[in-house]
């Protein structure tokens, strides 16, 4: 399962243990939860004593067996969470993208797993509640006298309810990005965090169970006869004629049945949500990496080394979080960052850390610039000839992202998705949107890709990315990076890579023909309502996708700015001074790009907040957080250094910008 990741010490030594601890805790929490469930399911207002005696009588072999089953289910859910969690959300930019996420085989396995576990939990609930729900078959008398086994529909309805709730849980999980793990703004202890979120989990599971049961009843009302007859056939059970079938109006009025269904669904969702919550809490806990390793064999575990790792993402995120915290809170670890290497006297730690942070920022700046260019050019009416001129560069544009993120990008998955999707996602070319070449993404469903691939290939945006604006921009970025080299720090790699390499040839006849056909096909498809519905871009989704991994950038900005602030008093060797110009220029460049991005439509519209859901909607507002953090970071540096910044070398444009910050006019 961890085919690519087993090599990583961090997954083996930290994440697995954290996951195991969280699963262990959720299994330990199962007995009290089950006790409450039993009490509530047996509760009767009129006979409180009988309720208690019934609850006590439950302690038997079968109940212990079902309890063990429940524990097994929790462990399985924990494994699924561990397998599917992500720190960078996958954001679908159109309906069709969402659909393909739902139909992805990987997701399909997840849904089936949840479905099966739902059935198991449903069985356990039915057995625990007892009475009429207890067995699948029961003896009954058919009209001609001799007894036979009949189907107990009340039992069946529980099993199917479990399956339905499990399935809808996994589907909603995809839609709401439930696998996304966000990091808290304050570092509380695990217990306090758990205690604080418990009421929310309870509320979420109760409301979610209510809606699920409502939908389930509707589905069962219309389609309930299918599984019923199937079960009867396979198990050779009879349908009892004298008893009312449950897919009738009568079941809607059977309050006791509805209550039991609801409480079981709540129990199911609660135990799973608790597992999820504990996993989130344990995994996002702060991990302290040593800034300088004492032994050489541990050197791959030190912060500067870990920061530059590309995979796994969780390691990168935790390292950046640790960097942000150490820069803010611990003077002793900061002094290690500013220290010089013992033989040689090179500031290796600072160079590695600042270089990595700067390259992160530069990558984001480029991503934003590229997105902006595409949106701008797509917004204009393009002449056919220019389009055809670009289409000839088709072969080189299969890896369109390459000029944008030439470095083996730190985000192996999402930037590609984000970039490709958002770039293609303008209203002019709705067909190109949802599919990306990324193999790991859910869009890689082969059938769908085959279906769409031709369209994608003749989409115009491959060419438009390489617009003159980018060409113009490239030297500018490059000049700032020469700056860096002069200053003796390792250059943030993406900036130094020369501009897009692409030979522009004459428009061929074939290309022009293809272009014309493509336009025709596009026009034809655009008139079909269903296709428009599926392929139309969701507003602000592309913005969200662009900033999907911005938590990393936020920490990089915080870490850099706090370190620079501390260097004013703590940096004995002037290590930071050499990098200060490049830090300032990359922050100002990013500021410019972010400002431009927020001028686009939908970029500054706030998402609706959902309060009663386990969905973590932090990713929807990451761009606002990034903007605020960026401004604060620049202010932190300008406030600390004040007029000393006038001595820093930088371009006239940046100096002007910085002056605005020094005068508090931003």
């Amino acid at each position, binding site marked *: 399962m961890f085919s690519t990741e087993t090599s990583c010490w961090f997954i083996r030594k930290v994440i697995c243990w954290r996951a195991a601890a969280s699963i262990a805790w959720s299994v330990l929490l199962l007995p009290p939860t089950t006790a409450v469930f039993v009490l509530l399911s047996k509760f009767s207002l009129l006979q409180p004593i009988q309720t208690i005696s019934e609850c006590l009588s439950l302690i038997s072999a079968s109940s212990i067996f079902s309890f063990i089953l429940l524990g097994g289910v929790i462990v399985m859910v924990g494994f699924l969470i561990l397998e599917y969690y992500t720190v960078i959300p996958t954001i679908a930019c159109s309906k069709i993208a969402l659909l393909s996420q739902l139909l992805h085989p990987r997701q399909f396995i997840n849904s089936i797993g949840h479905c099966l576990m739902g059935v198991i939990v449903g069985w356990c609930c039915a057995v625990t509640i007892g009475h009429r729900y207890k067995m699948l078959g029961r003896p009954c008398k058919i009209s001609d006298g001799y007894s036979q086994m009949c189907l107990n529909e009340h039992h069946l309805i529980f099993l199917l309810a479990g399956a339905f709730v499990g399935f809808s849980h996994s589907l909603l999980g995809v839609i709401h990005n439930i696998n996304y793990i966000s990091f808290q703004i304050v570092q509380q202890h695990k217990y306090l965090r758990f205690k604080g979120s418990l009421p929310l989990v309870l509320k979420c599971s109760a409301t979610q169970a209510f809606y699920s049961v409502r939908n389930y009843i509707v589905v069962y009302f219309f389609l309930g006869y299918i599984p019923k007859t199937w079960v009867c056939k396979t198990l050779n059970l009879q349908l009892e004629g004298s008893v009312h079938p449950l897919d009738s109006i009568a079941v809607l009025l059977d309050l006791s049945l509805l209550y039991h269904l609801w409480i079981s669904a709540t129990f199911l969702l609660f135990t799973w949500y608790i597992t999820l919550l504990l996993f989130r809490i344990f995994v996002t806990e702060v991990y302290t990496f040593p800034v300088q390793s004492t032994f050489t064999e541990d050197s791959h575990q030190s912060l500067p080394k870990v920061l530059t790792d590309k995979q796994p993402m969780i390691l990168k995120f935790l390292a950046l979080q640790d960097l942000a915290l150490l820069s803010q809170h611990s003077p*002793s670890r900061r002094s290690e960052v500013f220290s010089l290497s013992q033989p040689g006297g090179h500031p290796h730690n600072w160079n590695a850390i600042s270089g990595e942070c700067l390259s992160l920022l530069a990558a984001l700046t480029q991503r934003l610039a590229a997105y902006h260019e595409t949106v701008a050019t797509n917004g204009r009416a393009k002449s056919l000839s220019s389009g055809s001129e670009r289409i000839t560069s088709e072969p080189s544009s299969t890896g369109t992202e390459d000029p944008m993120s030439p470095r083996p990008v730190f985000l192996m998955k999402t930037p590609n998705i984000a970039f490709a999707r958002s770039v293609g996602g303008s209203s002019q070319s709705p067909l190109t949107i949802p599919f990306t070449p990324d193999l790991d993404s859910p869009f890689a469903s082969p059938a769908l890709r085959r279906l769409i691939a031709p369209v994608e290939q003749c989409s115009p945006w491959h060419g438009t990315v390489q617009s003159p604006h980018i060409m113009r921009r490239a030297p500018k970025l490059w000049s700032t990076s020469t700056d860096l080299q002069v200053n003796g720090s390792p250059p943030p790699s993406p900036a130094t890579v020369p501009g897009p390499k692409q030979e522009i040839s004459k428009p061929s006849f074939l290309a022009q023909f293809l272009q014309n056909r493509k336009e025709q096909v596009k026009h034809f498809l655009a008139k079909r309502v269903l296709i428009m519905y599926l392929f139309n871009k969701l507003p602000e989704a592309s913005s969200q996708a662009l900033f999907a991994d911005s938590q990393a950038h936020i920490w990089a900005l915080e870490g850099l700015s706090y370190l620079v602030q501390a260097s004013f008093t703590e940096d004995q060797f002037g290590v930071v001074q050499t990098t200060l110009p490049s830090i300032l220029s990359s922050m100002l460049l990013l500021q410019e790009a972010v400002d431009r991005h927020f001028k686009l439509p939908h970029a500054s519209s706030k998402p609706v907040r959902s309060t009663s859901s386990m969905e973590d909607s932090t990713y929807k*507002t990451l761009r606002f957080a990034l903007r605020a953090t960026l401004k604060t970071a620049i202010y*932190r540096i300008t406030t600390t250094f004040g007029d000393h910044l006038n001595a820093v070398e930088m371009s006239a444009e940046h100096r002007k910008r910085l002056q605005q910050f020094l005068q508090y*006019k931003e």
Partner: protein
Amino acid sequence: MFSCYLVLDSSSAKSDLAYENRERGFTMVKMCSLALFPPLSYGQITLCESNNELLSGTSSDEALKQDFIPPSLHFPRESLKLHSRPESSSKAAFLDHSETLWMRSAAAWRDGGLSGLLNEITTSHSEAPKWLSVTSGCILAVLRWVSSFHGSLFPHVTLSSEDMITEFSQVLNWPDCVVRAFSWHPHTDKFAVALLDDSIKIYNPKSAITPTLKHRLQRNVAAVQWKPLCASALAVACQNCLLVWHVDPCSLSTRPSSSCAQVLSHPGHSPVTSIAWSPSGSLLLSASPMDMSMMVWDVAAESCVPLHRVGGGGVTFLSWSPDGSHVLSSTPSPLFRVWETRTWTCERWPCIKGRCQSGCWSPDGSRLLFSVQGETVIYALTFTGTPGAPASGFRGPEAAVVVADLSETTFNTPDGDVTVGGEVQSLAWDPRGERLAVLFKGDPQAANKPAIVAVFKTRANPVFELLPCGFVQGEPGAEPRLMQFHPNFRHGALLTLCWSTGRITHVPFYFLSTSGSFVGLGGSPSLPRLQEKPADFSHQSLFTELIS
């Protein structure tokens, strides 16, 4: 005049504050009673402090006007258009009673929640079915009984939200104030003023434009504060929510639209009586006496993390230490907490007499001064150790010590005896840690017990000490209501006072800072208390020099 030093057994201080457990030896406590202050000059207006002396004159125009002192402002009460009464009282008159019961119930549910709905059903018993109105009447009675029980535990929950703000605000006599809240920008010379008519004005000496901020939800402003390390963001604590305005400093608009304001609200978290930005500008704390949790807001993402602690019945006042390592949060009960901001754990500090009314931090965050309702002293807590150290953990204070006795003292003036002192309304410490301003409540009934501001000189190094400086007086008949120090006044300290007449004046204290530089991140640890005595003598001479 000479100062006297009392040596107190720390157990006498303990009789007032119940401490957790630890035992401490004798503590030398220097008492600085108000009797040692320079006498009141009645009918004179305090202009400034210069050469260790408070200068006063008969009118505020006499002041030696300097460019760097912002001009004083005046908001005459008559010029403000006040609201008619809040809509809740007049609502019944306009509500269309011809609507069906269900429509009205829905409206009541929307406006007043469950109790509103029940109330509506119970009162309209002629239309509702009998069983429904009876049931809702019963539930309402049970709810009221429960809430009255809750109210008997925490008496403040029965107050209306305006009374609650009055009770817990740092502003003296809040409902009657023309200027209800005031905030200097932490880095520039601009400031925001919240007025009685629920508008906020922003004054900038460098520009002629004074933006006026109005918002539908901006009611009963209890506090305003600018975001540090930002030019534009202003947080406003309102009756039902928090507003964060983004006022572009380059904009020429005098009425920024409501779209410039972010609304932050959380169910059950109203009225908001206190807010505090973290000094790093990343987090915003908000407190409500009705909510047991203190909210930590990520303003950009509009998300919050409630920090829930049982006990106290709410949070009334928040103060973030300037170095960002600690937060003081006081509750309506005789209990306050000091949070450390790394992992957000807290220390409980129970008091015996009353709740913590006000508090302020020294610039390096190592010392907290606070006052307790019902007592006429200022206590100090000292936090030693570096809060940033990862493993060692920081060492909290072991006991609170009394640093100043503020019991009532009578001065003879030509107009008769004036009594000064008593309970403290609010405390303010200037950003260099050299002047401490104390606003006394006074007695509104007694004419000779006015509310007054007393200013102490303080010094943190080499030992902490408190010396009298003088009383700050305004125009005759004007009471100080609110005070704040300018966050970065270059020539000493600048105290801004808002008066009951609607005037805002600035009193500069000119001095050369002894510490030289501003707050460092790691303040030097304070020396053990034993060394206090020799140091005291050296300052006694300074003090005598001052009054000669």
